[in-house]
């Protein structure tokens, strides 16, 4: 699999899916494209060392690159002339859109926990596989998954929306 043509074939075949993973990590399509390409360059540099299954290395490059950007880039306030378009939990229609609330709640998770959820529930990777990618123990993956899901369950907006929908 170390052949360069195979790297090209790999990028062509897998990058659409990997772009989605990158987007779920950073939640911005332009940044996701940049993140993916940066990760793929890193992957190419290690291509000869990577085994027959490049995916774990690619996921790791994505997660680590995103983490390093997250640490490095200033993430202050973004000036805007209009208030952000958020769902009001008291709005029955908004409350009905629990998926939108869940998507917003995902953004509030710590970066590491979000990465675990993306790998576990979007990429459908096993806990052992995620542990290998994130270079941590299976126990850590389990606990991070559990904490992340718990945070989503007690997210104030989701809780309020759920209560409102029950009342209605």
């Amino acid at each position, binding site marked *: 699999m170390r052949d360069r043509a195979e790297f090209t074939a790999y990028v062509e075949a897998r990058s659409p899916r990997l772009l989605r993973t990158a*987007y779920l990590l950073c939640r911005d399509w332009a940044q996701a*494209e940049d993140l993916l390409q940066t990760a793929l360059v890193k992957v*190419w540099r290690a291509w000869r060392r990577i085994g027959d299954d490049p995916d774990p290395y690619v996921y790791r490059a994505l997660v680590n690159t995103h983490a390093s950007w997250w640490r490095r880039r200033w993430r202050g306030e973004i000036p805007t002339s209009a208030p952000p378009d958020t769902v009001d939990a008291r709005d029955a229609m908004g409350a009905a859109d629990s998926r939108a609330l869940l998507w917003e709640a995902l953004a509030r998770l710590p970066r590491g926990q979000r990465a675990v*959820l993306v790998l576990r529930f*979007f990429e459908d990777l096993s806990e052992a596989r995620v542990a290998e990618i994130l270079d941590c123990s299976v126990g850590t993956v389990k606990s991070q998954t559990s904490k992340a899901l718990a945070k989503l369950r007690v997210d104030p907006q989701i809780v309020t929306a759920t209560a409102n929908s029950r009342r209605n």
Partner: protein
Amino acid sequence: MPTVEELRQVLDQASADAPDRTGRVAEVRRRIRRGNRMRVAGGAVAGVAALGVAGLLVPGSGAGPGDTGPATINVAAVMSASSGTALPDEHLGMRRIAAQRFSVSGKKMRITFTPTGPNTETTIQCRPGSIAVTWTNGHLSGYGDCNKRGSLLGSTTISAPDAGPLPVGKPVVLDMVVLPATVRKTVAIVPDGLSAEKMRIEGYAGKKTISRYLKDAPVKKADWSAAVYSGTCKGDGCPPTLPPSVTPTR
């Protein structure tokens, strides 16, 4: 109360509208080529004690591009500016063919060398908090910070044939400058001749180019060293070679 199934659906739907991007492979190749040309890694901490190892320095350090000092360097026992130990005779399977120490920052310094193999590694060792910029045969060829990374000797550029070869047997003029890292706030490390529009697009609006900056840059005392290795690079740190289909035709 969201379920795992709902979470799966949200992740799937939220990422379903990925913009259709053609040319990603070409863009990745371009980044790889650019990375091969400007592959940088950190230097090491420059201990004060190491800087005092004057007895083994090669004479003639400080020769700038306009100077007519000896261009070919005696490489025997040149010391690393960072570790104070002798630079290895061989690195990544390549032989050291040139090395020199310098004592000023803010001014271009020059060495010449003649590649002996398909890969040529240029390593600059300078203090953390500095950056090194290089020009190969007059063209901006790389820059990097001087922070330590891994086992690399310093701020390192490794050429590869597909990244613009340095032909075996053909002399190369390497100009280098070491600057405080803070200059990057006001200086664009870009080739000369970029249009104002291009500078703006690249995010360098309002910045001086490196050449312009160097015309009146303050020259200060700073100890740093450069070494050049050439041959066939062997090891994990070596740049991969791209397939012929993506080799630049420069």
